[in-house]
């Protein structure tokens, strides 16, 4: 089991987690790993959370990651980072997009969006925190926020021998290759 690596991408419907997961899985499978990816997206379009789980290694059995087993968690939204923290392995890494999307009870004024999430999580785990949305907007397309995060993730994972930029070229809409590659590089620069 120890040789299987586990990655979680968590966020809110519409943030592009599924595309990022697809690129990630394809890169890993091209590198010769056995890969399994699982997603729960039923209600995502209606404001629900989305999560995708990617497991890779020599041989992967379960398609889902257990609590305390994720090597890396990429949170596309701050409160989702908090929701999934117990899935992180002791000593695992987090990539957190410092970005808030209120959920319906918060919008309704019934609940308060928790304060100081990011500050707490950086104390609990090795976390890279940055504003992926702002980086994407500065590059000229706020929708590439997911690829900024993907760039940070691949840097945090540190798996040699995968030409991520080539995989991105094959998976984004024609005409958007260069902006996405720029976003990917900018994301990688955020991780030490």
């Amino acid at each position, binding site marked *: *089991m120890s040789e299987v690596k586990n990655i979680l991408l968590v966020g*809110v419907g519409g943030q592009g987690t599924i595309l990022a997961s697809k690129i990630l*899985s*394809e890169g890993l*499978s091209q590198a010769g790993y*056995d*890969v*399994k*990816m*699982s*997603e*729960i*997206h*039923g*209600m995502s*379009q*209606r*404001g*629900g*959370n989305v999560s995708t789980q990617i497991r890779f290694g020599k041989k*992967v*059995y*379960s*398609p*889902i990651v*257990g*609590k*305390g*087993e994720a090597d890396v968690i990429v949170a596309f939204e701050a*409160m*989702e980072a*908090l*929701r999934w*923290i*117990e*899935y*992180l392995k*002791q000593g695992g890494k987090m990539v957190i997009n410092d970005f808030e999307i*209120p*959920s*319906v*009870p*918060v*919008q*309704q*004024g019934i*609940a*308060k*969006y*928790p304060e*100081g*999430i990011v500050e*707490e*999580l950086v104390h*609990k*785990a090795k976390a890279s925190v940055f504003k992926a949305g702002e980086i994407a907007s500065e590059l000229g397309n706020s929708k590439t926020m997911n690829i900024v995060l993907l760039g940070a993730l691949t840097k945090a994972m540190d798996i040699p021998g995968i030409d991520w930029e080539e995989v991105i070229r094959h998976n984004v809409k024609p005409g958007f290759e260069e902006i996405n590659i720029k976003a990917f590089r900018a994301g990688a620069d955020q991780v030490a």
Partner: protein
Amino acid sequence: MKRLMTGNEAVARGAYEAGLTFASAYPGTPSTEILENMVQYKNDLYCEWAPNEKVALEAAIGASIAGARSMAAMKHVGVNVAADPLFTFAYTGVTGGCVLVSADDPGMHSSQNEQDNRNYATAARVLMLEPSDSQESKDYMKLGLELSEKFDTPVMLRMTTRVCHSKSLVSLEDRVESALIPYEKKIAKYVATPANGKALRRKLIDRLKSMEEYSNNAEINQAEYNGTEVGVISSGVAYQYAREVFGEDVSYLKLGMTFPMPMAKIKEFAGKVKKLYVIEEMDPYIENHLKMAGIPCIGKELIPEMDELNTDIVRKAIFGISTETIQSEKEAVVRPPALCAGCPHRGFFYALKKKKNIIITGDIGCYTLGSAAPLSAMDTCICMGGSISAGHGAAQALKKNGSDLKVVSVIGDSTFFHTGINSLMDVVYNNGNSVTVILDNRITGMTGHQENPGTGFTLMGDVAVEVDIPLLCKAIGMKEENVLTVNPLDLKAMDHALSYGLAKDEPTVIIAKWPCILKKFSEQDKKEFDLTPKKCEIDQETCKKCKSCVRTGCPAINSGDQIVINPDSCTGCSICKQVCPFDAIREVK
């Protein structure tokens, strides 16, 4: 060539490779993408959306009788709808191979119940296969069609959400055409009258013996001997969890075919290990078969009988080990689904919520979210089509007992075509007085926008005749003046229509017609509805923070120190503008 595919994609691929001719389905999570992926092969095969699962299976049966390989796909609860033809289909058997895909939803990710459809295979006595990943989903689909022809039986392919929606590597092969088997009239086989039925029943019982013999020798029921201390029997995705948790040192019997069960192989396996575990999701299906045969095993006394399994649950149940986790004192606020910003159902539910002294019977679809706060405008939700008939029963019972409560039944367009129409016939025929509201958003919304008999297009993209819902209602006996079509974004009109219906002591139908905001608008949609993009905004100086707009439950409206409308998600539906008592909300282009 290997490709990452979901189980659903792989099922479609398997059907294609096996030379399938005909596929039919009613969309339902987690099965929907099977037919959505089938469309890419439309040059080689034919596929369609059926109005419901019974119709889908019956059409597949017809294609099989005509000599073609065929399939029907549905979610677990869909098999309840299709159970009627299924049980007799088990008697008649097939001509061309026929597979029924049942996509079960352990954990109820998006279903009204969780049920273990392996029980259907035993009850109907049809051969059943259970893939545990995408490669097997493809392989078993192909094998299913072969075995269907070999044993003259329909075959169930039982998937679960994790198998349907997880991706793993699949080897692709070419399609091998399967020629139509020349048609022969076979009255004794295909006319299920009692006289023929008795003979067919005998054949069905006899067939089980040869199928069990196959099961005992099938490669897909595979034993892996790693030691004599512990043995594990499992099937489906539960095998993957078990294999990971128990590791390399125990022996496994992985069952790919779970009806008929390979009892001889199971006895042999059980005889070689000292301690035997059965790891299975939901019901003690395998376990019961073992116990009936007098084979001692450990199963549901440790493994939960409800919800999805995962490695955590299995590890904790068997070894008592929990993985150490990182905890936080802070708590994430729930992120429940809600009707989308601009959803046409919001206007309807808002108007309905204002009505007093009513019971609202609901149905299965996006609009079931109308039951959630702050709209809270739904009292029941049972099954597809059940809103109208349950509503009718309630209304008759109330009337009989002199209650002044009235009933409003709420149903979507696709659900109305599914099984709502026959319920409405019940209301009309039996002199009911309930108000039926058909929320016609011009698409099957909940499952991700599939075409249906009302949308004007088929699954394969051809232009189709549209069902005229008002005319249909009149055809079954609704009075002309009691069938109203209303724009649900117009709260006044919606309120008037409801008042009209509630005042009548005879059946009324209100068609709340406006396209789903997320739908790809057809040319006809653009002609029929004013869909020019608009936004609403709140004038902060006029706003008294009364929160009337917030109570519409629109996710584009944010309530904090100020109440603001998020311009990125607002679609300008204007419901908030209509409810604002201070005229603080205006439309902007």
